[in-house]
């Protein structure tokens, strides 16, 4: 049990890490990773939804009639998304403002519905939570690392939480701000993906 638990958890961290291995959830990945902070915020919000919807769907998996299962998943996921939305508005408003429309859009994030359908609906609650947590943390790490690359090159800083950089390159550096602009997001993700392919091949 512990072994499979560990397996379900760790697969999200490398073998199936989104969005690199599962090329899904690209919109938030590209849109909000101007900084590490935004990446972490988006990642955690998604993780929250993943874990709780996985848990609930797994608990209800024997009750939900197959014909309306997608509708049920959607209701469950949308509920948690709305909760995240409200709570973030109330407690981390500046972050909510930067993440903007991408918080409600967690509801259509293919990763979330994908895990519900592919995993949670077929496994026990404990495993489902492990799966959600693993994928969620993997997603968060991806967003944070993409955010780190983009922020350090594009702004010359690293901001983990609260809007104040924990690291700045220095005044001599003119930030290569292409990286924090929209096109830079695609290019950075594309190059990181190529890097992962290169490592994976060896």
């Amino acid at each position, binding site marked *: 049990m512990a072994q499979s638990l560990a397996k379900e958890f760790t697969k999200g961290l490398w073998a199936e890490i989104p969005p690199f291995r599962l090329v899904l959830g690209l919109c938030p990945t590209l849109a909000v990773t101007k900084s590490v902070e935004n990446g972490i915020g988006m990642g955690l919000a998604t993780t929250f939804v993943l874990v709780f919807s996985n848990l609930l769907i797994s608990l209800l998996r024997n*009750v*939900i*009639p197959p*014909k*309306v299962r997608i*509708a*049920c998943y959607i*209701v*469950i996921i*949308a*509920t948690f998304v*709305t*909760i995240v939305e*409200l*709570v973030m*508005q*109330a*407690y981390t*408003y*500046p972050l909510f*403002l930067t993440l903007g429309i991408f918080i409600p859009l967690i509801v259509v994030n293919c990763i979330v519905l994908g895990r519900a359908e592919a995993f949670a609906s077929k496994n026990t609650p404990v495993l489902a939570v492990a799966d959600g947590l693993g994928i969620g943390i993997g997603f968060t790490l991806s967003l944070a690392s993409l955010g780190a690359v983009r922020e350090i090159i594009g*702004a010359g800083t690293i901001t983990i939480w609260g809007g104040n950089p924990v690291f700045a390159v220095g005044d001599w550096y003119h930030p290569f*701000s292409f990286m*924090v602009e929209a096109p830079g997001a695609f290019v950075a993700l594309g190059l990181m993906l190529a890097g992962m392919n290169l490592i994976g091949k060896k």
Partner: protein
Amino acid sequence: MREMISMIVVLTLLASVSGGLLAAVKSGTELRIEEQVLKFQKAPAIESLFSDVTNDPLKERFTLDTGDRTLQIFPGKMKDGSRAVAFETSGKGGYGGDIGLMVGINVDSDQLVGARVTTHAETPGLGSRAKDDLTFVSQFNSRPLDANLALKADNGSIDAISGATVTSRAVTRAAIQAQELYSQLKPEILKQIQ
């Protein structure tokens, strides 16, 4: 038939539980959210505009109907006794979309108090100077209400931020919109702040 019933029952139950849960979370966070919106979006601009008012414009806010939308109005009592209002307009066509502008107007002298950029998506260091650097918006200070607030390139009287003509133009559009809205709403505003 049984399947049908179970489908309906499950969905209905799920939906109502969800609705109830959300209603609860909503009511628990409602007040705080409104506070946050004011605190982060409007308060800085208003505080900067009305640095020397004797009242709390945020607390005394009221709303007016402009015909196609409702406008939040923040009244301020200046130290010299004159009355002012601030409200937010938006200027189309910035480099990264529309630009929000909080405009303060002295009701007694019919002059602009000033203007501050609230929301924008302009290029950092370029268009964002409209918000971060007050030199540009301070051109609006104490302008009479009938002043031509367009850019000089558009035969008006405002100097554009160098390298960010587009941002500047969007801000002036917002300011001109404020002029128009104010002249339209003035009677009602006067009524409200009596």
